[in-house]
């Protein structure tokens, strides 16, 4: 199914305690595309991202990963846990707070899911992990435990961990927001490389330069509604709404 989009979201709505956080969100992410999601705090960016791999369950709407509906089937029946897990494995996620597993070394953080979810042979998993850690510049820390790493190093390991499952799409939730300013660059650098290699990525970020340079599509969320979507040049130079103009002014 090479021409099915990596992610297709249709009329997605989600409330928390009666407050609507996402309303009728439609979004298509094609293979090889980088989509940036912008918006101010509380606009629903994380919730949207977390619905894609069913860490949050939407109230309405459909989400398809590579054409396959996640979470429920078309009759609204819940997906069996095993199938849900298998579909989640096709999406990688990188969190703001890294969320590495502290009891495992860098190498084992990366090999854990391939070995215990996909059943990849240990040798093979280690070989792949070494390549990926090399790609993110962390091969020299393979035997280290997470607590010995800087934030930027942890995040690069977390990216390698996500890549290790060969996902169809990688979801990034503000991957540099928890980093000291001088460490932001090393993580954005890795993400730029990934986009150049053709990885499909959905990125929630406050890094405007990055979004402008790397995205194929920029989406702006305001109170749970996508009020603007455009190619980056257009979005940053000629926004259509007053809301986005204000937002961009504040980010200057």
């Amino acid at each position, binding site marked *: 199914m090479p021409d099915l989009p990596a992610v297709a979201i249709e009329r997605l709505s989600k409330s928390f305690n009666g407050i609507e956080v996402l309303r009728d969100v439609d979004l298509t992410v094609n293979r090889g595309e980088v989509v940036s999601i912008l918006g101010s705090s509380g606009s629903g960016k994380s919730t949207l991202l977390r619905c894609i*791999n069913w*860490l949050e369950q939407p109230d309405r709407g459909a989400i398809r990963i590579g054409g396959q509906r996640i979470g429920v089937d078309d009759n609204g029946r819940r997906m069996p*846990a*095993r199938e849900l*897990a*298998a*579909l*989640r*494995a*096709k*999406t*990688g*996620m990188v*969190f703001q*707070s890294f*969320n*590495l*597993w*502290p*009891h495992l070394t860098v190498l084992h953080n990366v090999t*854990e*899911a391939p070995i*215990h*979810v*996909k059943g990849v042979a240990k040798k093979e998993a280690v070989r792949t992990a070494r390549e990926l850690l090399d790609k993110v510049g962390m091969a020299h820390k393979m035997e280290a*435990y*997470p*607590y010995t790493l800087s934030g930027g190093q942890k995040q690069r390991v*977390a990216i390698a*961990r*996500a890549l290790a*499952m060969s996902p169809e799409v990688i*979801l990034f939730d503000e991957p540099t927001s928890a980093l000291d300013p001088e460490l932001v660059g090393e993580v954005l650098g890795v993400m730029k490389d990934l986009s150049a290699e053709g990885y499909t990525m959905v990125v929630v970020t406050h890094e405007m330069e990055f979004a402008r340079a790397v995205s194929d599509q920029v989406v702006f969320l305001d109170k749970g509604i996508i009020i603007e979507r455009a190619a980056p040049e257009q979005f940053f130079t000629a926004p259509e709404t007053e809301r986005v103009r204000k937002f961009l002014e504040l980010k200057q």
Partner: protein
Amino acid sequence: MNAQTWWLLLEGAWTTAWISGVAIAIGVVAGLAIALVRMARIPVIDQVLVIYISLARATPLVTLVLFIFLVAPTFGIVMNRNIAGIMALTLNTAAFNAEIWRAAFLSFSREQKEAALACGMTNGVIFRRIMLPQMFTTSLPGLVNEMSFLIKGSPAIAVIGIVDLTRVTNRISAVTYEPLPPILAAAALYMIIISMLLKLQDMAEKKANRLTM
């Protein structure tokens, strides 16, 4: 004290060690199983477990030992002393361990779990590969504490005639009319058993350092 009294003491120490050891081994695993079942919050079963835990924690060990040993025959079960002793100790320690494990479940990092879910892990894999190793390390100090309480409470099994390390000192002094030496020797043996546990706790604490992110 002569060689024979030392031999008797060591036999008593062995009885204490193996009966407590079996109860500890079963009690740690049973406590984990109880905590796991409680996390599932199955109606009725959950209430039953809550009642068991409060009863077992409130009942003195001696009472529990006697109860099991004396009540079993009325159900037609012929109860071997050692088994009754192990059962009582296990029922007691499992209740305390269940609370320790439960605290570890409840405090486990949601972020780490989400990272595991996002990688496609099922709950079973997450439990075995991500949660349990860390819960074991963080719970070990509490578990070892409970183990040493159990060993120190284990003389309760003497009420049904098991000759443990404390009971044997009575027997020795009944013959030698010198109660002090065997009691001091028994205290030393208890200390050796407990200090081996504390060593374990020490090792766990070193390992726990890396879990603090």
